[in-house]
């Protein structure tokens, strides 16, 4: 065995340590494992490699991936990420630390989480948020679980069709075999059918889940929905791309009970879908139903302000088999990234970024729809995404754009096969007029 840089023990030290223990070999330390199960061969894996070799091999894999000017969205977006975000996330005391169990030496991590919670509360308008969940889809699951666990005799979650197909799929995985019905309420032309949702509000409905901007990019008009849901003693869960909330109505303003979503647009690279951050926020009365870590403000023995993990009675390590969520590890470092991002852009920046997305998306929309005559799935308003019904020409369009160095949009049928011929196009503040004009020029040839 070579002296590996990650393994400090030298031969001499190993010898001396074995002596202290009172055994004569490393093998003796594994004598409690029956020979009948002991691995009798070497693992069929390559031998150790040096740092340089590993770096070369992984660089090679990275180079095998290709990219293009991206109009892809549907849950992951190509926004500008300030350099400070990565620099701070790379500070050793942030990324090499664990869950801040020991508050006295973890004030920095705790305070950063407290700030994250505060920002999520402010953006959603809610009272209380947790330290993060895995992603937007599992955040919706946790919200649904909160709703189910807050009401008696409920066995149904109503989900508008316009919720992200993956979110619906994950809901089905989580609840499908638990006797809880995930009932999809069909949409009309890319928008939720609120009349149908109201009609479906029966006493066994624990919650209604809607998403705005929805999977097709359109903003939903939730006027009156909360009242109807609340009259039914159900909970309203609203999922939102938080980047929209600088200019679009927040979940609290729609009078939702639980706000969820994904903060990937806030300072996190797409990274093939993860890590991102699921956020969840709710009203004070549901605070003790909230899953996951929560940081609270308190004081130390000298009366100074301090932060600490709190309300732990909710959590799996205390509740064990009575727990309603099993979350333990979360997405803390990614949540830190979001916190840094939001600190940098500030209240003005959130509005500006949202407005840039909005303006640019409308520029491309208008050129494609009004100028080229492409068919929009739905009418405005939308935020930074809209959907075209390209029909049989979808293949041609997407391929022509790709040849021109452009990812033209998400073929929604890849998320749900019912949506043949639909292409959802996302435009962020990073896209330029020149890039969009190129898009239009290529599309003109195909459409």
């Amino acid at each position, binding site marked *: 065995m070579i002296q590996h840089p990650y*393994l400090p023990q030298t031969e001499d030290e190993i010898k001396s340590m074995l002596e202290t223990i009172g055994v004569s070999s490393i093998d003796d330390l594994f004598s409690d494992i029956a020979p009948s199960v002991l691995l009798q061969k070497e693992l069929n894996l390559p031998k150790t490699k040096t740092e340089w070799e590993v770096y070369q091999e*992984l660089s*090679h894999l990275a180079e095998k*991936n290709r990219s293009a000017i991206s109009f892809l969205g549907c849950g992951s977006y190509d926004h500008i990420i300030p350099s400070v975000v990565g620099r701070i996330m790379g500070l050793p005391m942030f990324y090499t630390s664990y869950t801040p169990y020991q508050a006295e030496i973890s004030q920095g*991590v705790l305070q950063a989480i407290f700030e994250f919670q505060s920002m999520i509360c402010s953006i959603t308008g809610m009272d209380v948020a947790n330290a993060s969940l895995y992603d937007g889809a599992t955040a919706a699951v946790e919200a649904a679980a909160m709703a189910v666990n807050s009401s008696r005799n409920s066995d149904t979650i109503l989900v508008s069709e316009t919720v992200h197909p993956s979110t619906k799929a994950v809901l089905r995985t989580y609840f499908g075999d638990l006797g809880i019905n995930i009932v999809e309420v069909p949409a009309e032309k890319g928008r939720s059918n609120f009349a149908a949702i109201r009609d479906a509000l029966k006493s066994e409905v624990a919650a209604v889940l809607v998403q705005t901007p929805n999977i097709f990019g359109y903003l939903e008009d939730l006027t009156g929905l909360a009242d109807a849901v609340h009259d039914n003693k159900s909970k309203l869960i609203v999922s939102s791309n938080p980047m929209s909330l600088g200019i679009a109505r927040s979940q609290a303003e729609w009078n939702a009970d639980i706000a969820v979503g994904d903060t990937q647009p806030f300072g996190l690279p797409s*990274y093939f879908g993860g890590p991102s951050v699921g956020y969840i926020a709710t009203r004070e009365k549901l605070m003790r139903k909230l899953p996951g870590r929560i940081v609270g403000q308190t004081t130390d023995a000298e009366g100074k302000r301090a932060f600490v993990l709190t309300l732990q009675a909710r959590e799996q390590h205390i509740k064990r088999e009575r727990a309603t969520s099993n979350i333990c590890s979360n997405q803390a470092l990614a949540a830190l990234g979001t916190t840094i991002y939001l600190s940098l852009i500030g209240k003005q920046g959130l509005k500006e970024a949202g407005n840039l997305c909005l303006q640019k998306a409308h520029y491309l929309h208008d050129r494609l729809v009004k100028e080229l005559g492409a068919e929009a799935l739905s009418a405005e308003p939308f935020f930074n995404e809209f959907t075209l019904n390209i029909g049989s020409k979808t293949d041609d369009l997407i391929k022509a754009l790709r040849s021109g160095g452009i990812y033209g949009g998400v073929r929604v049928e890849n998320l749900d096969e019912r949506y043949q011929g639909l292409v959802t196009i996302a435009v962020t*503040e990073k896209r330029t007029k020149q890039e969009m004009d190129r898009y239009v020029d290529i599309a003109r040839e195909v459409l």
Partner: protein
Amino acid sequence: GETQLIFERSVAGRRGFLFPENDVETKPIDNLIPENYRRNGETCLPEVSEVDVVRHFTELASRSFGVDAGFYPLGSCTMKYNPKVNEDIAALSGFTSLHPLQPSEDVQGILELMYKLTKGLCELTGMQWGTLQPFAGAHGEFTGMKLFKAYFKSRGEHDRRKILVPTSAHGTNPASAHISGFEVQEIEADHRGLVSIEDLKKHLDENLAGIMLTNPNTLGLFEKDIETIATLVHDAGGLLYYDGANLNAIMGKVRPGDMGFDVIHMNLHKTFSTPHGGGGPGAGPVLVSKRLVKFLPVPDVEKQGEAYDFCFAHPESIGRISGFYGNIGVLTRAYAFLLAMGSDGLTAASEMAVLNANYLRSRLKTSFSIPFEGICKHEFVLSAKNIKEEFGISALDVAKALLDAGIHPPTIYFPLIVPEALMIEPTESESKETLDRFVEVMESIAKQAAVDPQKLHDAPHQTPVRRVDEVQAAKHPIVAWRPE
């Protein structure tokens, strides 16, 4: 002392980042979004300059503790060294910039990585195939429990709803089983600290779905009877779930698959050294034996000829468990670790982890109580019972005193079956000198318990804040800053 909140640094009008100007016509926002859809309230996001943000978070970092600061023997969490090259690799733009819905011909590199990592993990654990999607260990447990469910459903065994969990198990085990729709029954430990075969036998009936085990268990002891347990459970029609939290003890030595486990999750943020990040992101891949492969979540990564692609066509799959494909940024680091260690390095890592634990255990057993005899694996549990009874010094006091020595305390009060437990996991990354210094500090604390117990009750003394009032936090929760 105190640190300002970022909100308290805010000054109206200050900017920390600017977006490029709009290069298309700017239309009145009212024309694009009707009033009814518009936000009314302001957010409280801070208005600060770039240097404000940098100094604020740099200060917060300096008020935290990580593996790069020193010894972090937090039992069951495997706080090993996070190699720096893995951070450089994970930051390659060929990985970071990938959108999850790019065409598969443009993401061959990452798909190859996912495929090869899955294969490597299977070889390491003796399993058939797996999924990399679970975001964390608990998410892996949940996935595993859903696989159990799908298995029994496919067999029409709808009454198998009972999951056995040892009393010493991590809290996530019973919680995961519960939220997946199982009933949890606890199995007791015997005098050896191992699963009581006698008690186990009492629970083997037609309602048995299976058992969740960590091996070595949370006492750091290898479940010697694992073959017997596996036979008993399998014979009773149940399945075995392996909680990979303690896999760092046995790599290259014994494989969960060979022990008879049907499903396992790994914690890549433990065993494979991906940074813990203050609580996440992690990755909890789930690997299964042959008969459970068809139930794995979608999408699956497949190799067809020389090309890699996602496959959704698994009719018996439990379905999606995440919005996209999991924490890919964690997987890149884990794959780098797999390559850097290799078969010999992984084996040596476990050997050194076990050596370090036994060395510490041997040296600490004179000053503290040891609840169970014999060799341990990668971690062990010490008890402060002796100094608690004699001098009133609790495990918590010991933990807080360690803070003053610049050492992260062990996990305390877990497992629940040991009073005043201190659960110590040194990992393979630590040198003998680091361990020797830890012993020195622990011995001096034990001595101080006799001489000046109040000093220990008042500990820590040197930290940014003194002992923190947890009761107040829970009684009067303040969980968000609000503008006055």
